Structures are given as structure tokens and as C-alpha cells.
């Protein structure tokens, strides 16, 4: 098991993961520069796969680069762009470069992106992709054909506790964990009651014990960013009072930060929550400030171990 896998499994401290930004060209130095913003504060970074249905530098290339630069990549694979052959090839190919942590997602529809005329693939759905990744981890392709060199993979998935129907989200989380997922990163959400009921559900059905659950927060600095997500990003709903809180504040950027800190504090009090996933759209000092204020992540591992 990888170091990150052990960290997720033993729950000795809250895990911190972050969304690595998409890149559009450059070289290894470009990746290295972007990585320095995250390296001291996170246990792993998500390498996205054409997020929001926009083409970017590929998940495989970015995951390999980040691994070479000494940070644990979580390579996302979405079902939208590639069929089962290509998805398996990407996973096996990346694993040959030391990338062993993967996250299977359905993926936003092509209509969410800037090339809505593209053909959507969806040859697989995410529970099927998780199960196929699990097969690769055991040493074979979906066809049953054996891999010459088996490599154990750490497989994750996502779930959206804030999208209806709530009870189905809990059951779907179980389906993914039954298929082999060992961590679940949750969608961004602004309704604490929905997160609480989802967590109660996954604790009750044993999912939270078998998989590390990581709620997601997003660092923003204006009410416009929240309005954009509410209106344009599939699966994200921002209630009007939340937007008003930021819009009416004297200092919108500071209020935005405080909102996120409250969200993380709240999430970490919930039974079954193993850590937090952070998306940083501010690109300022807020990521460091957040993990420092809450004393979470690798930079504070020693102090957490002392208080545990």
C-alpha cells in the first residue's frame, strides 16, 4: 500500500487533498512552479481529466509529471471522453510511471464545456469504471486478459450529497465502495444539513469505515464566483442567503475565506469525515492560512499526532 493509502486507512489525522489547476501547455517547469503552491500543505493533489468538459493537458501526462516532482497525484478518469479500452490503457500506462492512485468520475456533460458539439462517449459509468480499475489492481483487464506486471492501485470515487435524491446518494456511495473505492471525495456544497444526513447515512451503512470520506470546499473571494458556480457549474447549488452573506459583507474576500473555514470546521466535526479536499480559486495565501488556522495537513502532522 502507498503512503497515501496508509494515511487514508489509518485515520491518524485529517487528510488534506487539493485540486491541481489544469494547464494548457508549457513544460515540466510549468508544472513544478504550479505545484509549489500546494506541496507543503497537502497530502495529494487531484489531477483532473478535462474538467467541466474543457480540453486541457491530459490527466496521464500531468499525473506522471506531479509524481516525478515528488507529490502524490490522484489521477481522475472521467467516462465522458474515452471508451473502456482507452480508459484501461490510461490507468495501466500511468501506473508504469508510479501513478497508483486513481479516482473514477462520470464527468460533466460535453454541453457544460466550450466544445458542446463534441461526441459524448460514456461507454462506462463510474461504478463500472471503479470495478474495472479494481480488476486492473488485481492483475487483469476487463476482458480477463492478464497484465504481465500487476501493480496494486488505490481507487477512489466521488459522490454528490447535495444532489437529489438524498437516500440514493448514500446507496450509490455504497455501490462504489463495494466495487473497490477506498476514498470518496464529495462535491462542493453549501447546505450543511445535507452533508450531515449523507454522513449519517454512510456511517450507518459502514461505507465511512471502509472508505475515507473527504468533503470538498472551494476558496473564492467574491459573490460573483458563487453566482457563477450556482448558475454554470453542473451539480453545484449555492443558496441565495450564502451569496447574500458574501455580497453584503464589508470585505467580500475575507468573508469568503471565513465561510470556507466554517465549512471545513463543520465537516471535520462530523463522524466519518476523514479529511477535506480543497479547491483554490483565489491563488493567494488562503490555502496556507486555512490549513494553518485549523492545524491540518502534512505541515501540522506532528502537532496533530501529539493531540490525537
Amino acid at each position: 500500500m502507498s503512503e497515501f493509502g496508509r494515511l487514508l486507512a489509518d485515520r491518524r489525522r485529517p487528510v488534506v487533498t487539493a485540486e491541481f489547476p489544469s494547464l494548457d501547455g508549457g513544460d515540466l517547469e510549468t508544472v513544478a512552479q504550479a505545484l509549489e503552491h500546494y506541496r507543503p500543505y497537502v497530502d495529494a493533489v487531484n489531477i483532473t481529466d478535462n474538467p467541466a468538459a474543457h480540453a486541457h493537458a491530459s490527466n496521464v501526462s500531468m499525473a506522471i509529471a506531479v509524481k516525478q516532482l515528488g507529490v502524490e497525484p490522484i489521477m481522475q478518469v472521467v467516462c465522458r471522453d474515452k471508451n473502456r479500452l482507452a480508459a484501461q490503457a490510461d490507468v495501466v500506462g500511468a501506473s508504469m510511471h508510479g501513478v497508483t492512485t486513481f479516482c473514477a468520475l462520470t464527468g460533466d456533460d460535453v454541453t457544460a464545456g466550450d466544445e458542446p458539439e463534441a461526441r459524448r462517449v460514456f461507454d462506462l459509468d463510474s461504478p463500472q469504471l471503479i470495478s474495472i480499475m479494481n480488476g486492473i489492481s488485481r492483475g487483469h483487464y476487463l476482458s480477463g486478459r492478464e497484465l504481465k506486471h500487476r501493480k496494486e492501485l488505490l481507487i477512489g470515487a466521488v459522490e454528490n450529497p447535495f444532489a437529489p435524491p438524498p437516500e440514493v446518494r448514500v446507496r450509490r456511495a455504497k455501490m462504489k465502495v463495494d466495487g473497490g473505492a477506498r476514498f470518496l471525495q464529495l462535491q462542493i456544497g453549501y447546505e450543511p444539513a445535507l452533508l450531515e444526513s449523507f454522513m449519517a447515512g454512510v456511517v450507518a451503512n459502514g461505507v465511512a469505515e471502509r472508505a475515507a470520506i473527504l468533503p470538498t470546499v472551494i476558496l473564492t473571494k467574491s459573490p460573483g464566483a458563487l453566482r457563477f458556480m450556482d448558475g454554470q457549474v453542473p451539480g453545484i447549488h449555492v443558496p441565495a442567503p450564502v451569496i447574500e452573506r458574501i455580497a453584503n459583507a464589508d470585505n467580500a474576500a475575507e468573508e469568503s475565506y471565513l465561510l470556507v473555514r466554517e465549512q471545513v470546521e463543520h465537516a471535520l466535526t462530523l463522524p466519518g469525515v476523514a479529511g477535506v479536499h480543497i479547491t483554490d480559486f483565489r491563488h493567494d495565501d488562503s490555502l496556507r492560512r486555512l490549513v494553518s488556522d485549523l492545524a491540518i495537513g502534512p505541515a501540522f502532522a506532528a502537532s496533530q499526532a501529539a493531540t490525537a
Partner: protein
Amino acid sequence: MLRKLLPVVEHVVKGPVWDCQMCGQCVLHSTGMTCPMTCPKTLRNGPCGGVRPDGKCEVKPEMRCVWVKAHDRAENMPLLPKSWREEITHMRPPVNNELKGDSSWLNLVSGLDRQTPAGWQED
């Protein structure tokens, strides 16, 4: 003869009622009599994370999410056998694209619709 005729008959029967897409491996009974192939992402194992707060589809906002409908019907549709209601939580394997256009009735009888690749969930 039967191989050519049955798909036509099946489409005539199931098209108007369920908007049947002729995947050739029908799972209607296990999905609240709601065809998952009418989901714009053709998801076979539950709703994606893009479902809108009002239960509408991410891709087609005017349409109720196929899987919201499926779960609702699996619980509430009258006359559905208990075993069919429970099957909605079962994992359905990847679609066999070789069967597209076939009669699922024939594939049900022959068992072809339940054959999976050797590497599918060996446990």
C-alpha cells in the same frame, strides 16, 4: 426470420411506452420500468452528480432525471414485484455494444444479455 422480425416488433411495443433505445439487453424491470439508455449519459447504475436541485437532468433541464424517476418508480409503482424493486441497487455491467439493435427478448431467452467479460467482478 425471427432474428429480423422480433426487433421490429419489440421496438413497436417498447418504443412508444419506454422510449426503448434497442440496446438488446433490457434492464427495465430492475430500473423501475424506466429505460437508463434514455439518460443522456446512458448511465446504467444510478444518477450522476449533475442532477439539479429540482430533480431535473443536467443535460436537458426540461426533463426529469431518468434515475430520479427510476428510483421513485422502483419504490412507488404499483404491481412491481418486490424482487424487481430491490434489483435497482444491483450493479449492472457495462453495456455489450455487440447486442445493440437485437431483440432483448431473444437475448433474454438465450442468456446472451447476462453474459459478461471474464474480468468483470470475479468475486
